[in-house]
């Protein structure tokens, strides 16, 4: 039966398609393949989502080797939820990617872009689906190496430096995760996450486990770009090709936050992480710092992409903040925000992609008055922007509502204060861009639009889609809020 093979297909499909792009060596075909694969992959994740709703968990023994010896793919609600987000983002990004990629990547390398993109997708999906700690590390490496390659594909020379910087940071992070997994293996003799969690309870070598925990947290902190381990992120988002920034902003950091949640709740265990190690205080302080620091620096930038990059740092702070409250509501608010922010940020970055495509500029000063020449792009930018700020009836409001509610419930007054301050800062940095586009007088040279440089049709379609998603999930929230609440409930009360 094909349905029982879905967990494996989810990962293998993009993995198998990646070499195909290299063999065909054709830029448009590569795009078609990548898009088709992502659509299939999205359908698979929908099927898995449905299956999980009725069956709760699906396990799949890779190659027929039963866990804990073989590699097991473990799909529960959290997994299915994340798969849906990542695949959804991949489809939307690829849909609008073609023309922008042709514009920003040298034409003989375009097929390579789609190859690395598919590998990156494989890595991310693998990290989510696998139930094996070492296999998880392998997928992290696949995802990371391919993203370094994607970033360096840009025509801008600075992208090489950004990729190198990310490579150094990312490798340190991955090594730390590997060390952590190694230490856990030493203590328990197993790599299966479910098995590990049981054996850790009775293991008596507490010092080693603590060491493993610390290595893990620092490693994942680098990968997920939590303040102060975020230094690679602004450059990587700014200098890579716009489509790459879009995809990275929507997926990578969220997957690593998923890994954190998975390890903290399912592997190390909730009591150990929070009560023994008091991990949440560290998390809370750095989350608050990230929120304020990211929002503040976002105001100071001139580059559109850099503004959004710093805003991402702040938004990652929100996700960590929810987790650090160690309540069901807090975890739930994080999960909701992971979902909503993925689409908000992709919407903003895609709009910027369209702007860069049409005007070849990334500078807020140079987009002055451009709302008159491309009104729709800026309108769609505003919709996602409002959602980022958290205006009611957009998805961002729902995130913020639950996060503030969770902070109040946990009696952390100061957090409410920080959240609202950062919302105001978000108004300022989004407002600056809107003000420049709508109210500043355009200077003649940038304002002339090339007629062939109008926004590509498919990019426009994908932008409209995302705006609809941003509004839809502000009005009808059964899918993400209910799912998040079930997941949080299961993780905490397990």
């Amino acid at each position, binding site marked *: 039966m094909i349905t029982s093979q879905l967990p494996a297909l989810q990962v293998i499909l993009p993995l198998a398609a990646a070499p195909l792009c290299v063999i065909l060596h054709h830029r448009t075909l590569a795009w078609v393949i990548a898009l088709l694969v992502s659509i299939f992959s999205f359908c698979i994740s929908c099927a898995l989502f449905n299956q999980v709703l009725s069956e709760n968990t699906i396990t799949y023994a890779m190659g027929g080797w039963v866990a804990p010896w073989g590699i097991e793919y473990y799909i529960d609600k959290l997994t299915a939820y994340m798969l849906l987000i990542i695949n959804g983002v991949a489809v939307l990004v690829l849909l609008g990617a073609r023309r922008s990629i042709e514009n920003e990547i040298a034409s003989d390398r375009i097929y390579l872009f789609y190859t690395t993109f598919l590998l990156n997708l494989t890595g991310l999906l693998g990290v989510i689906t696998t139930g094996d700690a070492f296999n998880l590390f392998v997928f992290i490496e696949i995802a990371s190496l391919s993203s370094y390659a994607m970033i360096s594909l840009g025509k801008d020379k600075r992208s090489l430096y950004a990729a190198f910087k990310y490579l150094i940071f990312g490798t340190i992070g991955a090594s730390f995760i590997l060390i952590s997994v190694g230490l856990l293996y030493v203590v328990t003799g197993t790599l299966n996450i479910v098995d590990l969690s049981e054996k850790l309870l009775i293991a008596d070598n507490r010092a080693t486990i603590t060491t493993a925990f610390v290595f893990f947290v620092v490693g994942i902190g680098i990968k997920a770009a939590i303040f102060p381990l975020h230094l690679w992120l602004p450059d990587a988002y700014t200098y890579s090709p716009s489509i790459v920034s879009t995809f990275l902003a929507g997926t990578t950091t969220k997957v690593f936050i998923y890994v954190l949640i998975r390890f903290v709740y399912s592997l190390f265990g909730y009591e150990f992480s929070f009560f023994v190690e008091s991990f949440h205080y560290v998390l809370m302080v750095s989350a608050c710092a990230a929120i304020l620091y990211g929002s503040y620096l976002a105001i100071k930038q001139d580059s559109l992409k850099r503004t959004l990059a710093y805003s991402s740092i702040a938004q990652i702070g929100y996700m960590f903040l929810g987790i650090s409250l160690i309540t069901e509501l807090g975890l739930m608010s994080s999960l909701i925000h992971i979902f909503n922010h993925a689409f908000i940020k992709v919407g903003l970055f895609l709009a910027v992609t369209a702007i860069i495509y049409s005007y070849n500029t990334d500078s807020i000063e140079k987009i002055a008055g451009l709302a008159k020449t491309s009104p729709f792009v800026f309108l769609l930018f505003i919709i996602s922007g409002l959602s980022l700020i958290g205006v009611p009836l957009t998805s961002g409001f729902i995130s913020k509502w639950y996060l503030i*509610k969770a902070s109040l419930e946990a009696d952390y007054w100061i957090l409410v204060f920080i959240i*609202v301050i950062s919302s105001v800062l978000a*108004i300022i940095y989004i*407002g600056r861009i809107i003000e420049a586009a709508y109210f500043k007088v355009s200077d003649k040279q940038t304002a002339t639009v090339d007629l062939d440089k109008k926004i590509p049709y498919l990019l426009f379609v994908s932008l409209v889609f995302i705006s609809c998603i941003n509004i839809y999930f502000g009005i*009808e929230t059964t899918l993400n809020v209910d799912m998040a609440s079930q997941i949080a409930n299961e993780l905490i009360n397990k």
Partner: protein
Amino acid sequence: MNSQLLISASLLLPILGILFISLARKNANLREISTLIVSMALIYVVYSLLPDVLNGIYPELYLFDVTSNLVIHFQVEPLGMVFACVASFLWLINSIYSIGYMRANKYKNQTRFYIYFALAIASTIGIAFSANLFTLFIFYEFLTLSTYPLVTHKETEEVKRSGRVYLGILLATSICLFLPAIIWTYQLTGSIHFTPGGVFDKYEDPVIILCLLLIFVYGIGKAALMPVHRWLPSAMVAPTPVSALLHAVAVVKAGVFSVVKIIIYIFSPSLLSNTIDVNVLLYLSGATILVASIIALRSDNLKRRLAYSTISQLSYVILATALLVPISIMGAVLHIVAHAFGKITLFFAAGAIYTTTKKTKVSQLNGIGKSMPWTMLAFAIGSLSMIGIPPTAGFLSKWFILQGALDIEAWFAVSIIVISTLLNAAYFLPIVYVAFFRNSEIQRDRVYHEAPFPIVFTVFSTACITIILFFFPDIPLQLAKLLIGENI
């Protein structure tokens, strides 16, 4: 028609108007006619809800759940009815005025002006009819955003700066204070529905209640309680019809309306009078009344003087509600109506003066009454209503407020009202006096004539209504009685 349909119609009509206006953007006459027709239809719809409400039936419209407990829900209760009636009625009058004003002053982008105006009215009706804090908050934010393009209509640098203050203060207060207060209320009580008798348990910690009350009052920046009043003088850079309807009626009234509604339906007066010392709110609003009046006295720019007068009048409503006595709350409701008609008359007159003479300063108005007698007569009537001299509506509301204050021997409130009445007289009567009884030094000033007909007509009609309301205050009074009857 069934009442659910009426509620949705009242929300959708202005939106429909936007469609017509943008379709007719090429033809100015057609565009203005569609505005007028839609505003008349809105009046019809809103007033058809009135009989039900007067009979004690409060129609509801339940739209959808955003998540569990976050519901888009409308209910027409007496207070909202008063507000919606005033706003929809004045939209028509103001549209007539706008036609005269915008054409006479040759403004650009008039289509945009009418579109955002309709959007602002739709938001106002949404605020008036909202049945819970969530719905109220949504429309509150919409109102802020939809009025921003109106404030910055002239698109000059100075206007943009003021627009930034306007948007900044209103958005910042609502996000930093109003929203957390709503969520906190929800956290404490599990409900944000406007419930007769309030949602709070009577054993709730008084300190928390007081904190929440203050956060609400300051979070609703539109109520312009000092020190979050700065946006209102900034908004005066807008064209006069905007200042008249939005910044004397719709936006500011949305602010005090929300405050009154929250005090009555979220906290409930009985809870407040039994558990906490609400005198704090009395002192805050009293101080605002005095300080704003003094600033008004000292400002030479006519619209700025009117803006500060608005700030002080808004605090009257808060002060009256904070007294928590039925009779003064009735006064508060009446004051919302009375001030709306009085202040819009004054703004209309200021706009008429600007249209014909381009004068904006009080010191330039010597002898203006001789060339523009009707306008200045209306201005005089509006001033009398502001001061509270019969036979104007302002007298009635002040009477009720004062009576409430005397009943509970709140001497602070009494003295504030007395002093501020003197101050009101001091900054309005001299204008009337110099307009009629002093001659202008400049010779050519004597040749001015009245403003275009739509302007004079509307100025005069709102002035007449101010007087009519004094003799026939039945409908607002009845609604106010219903409001206090069920809650106190």
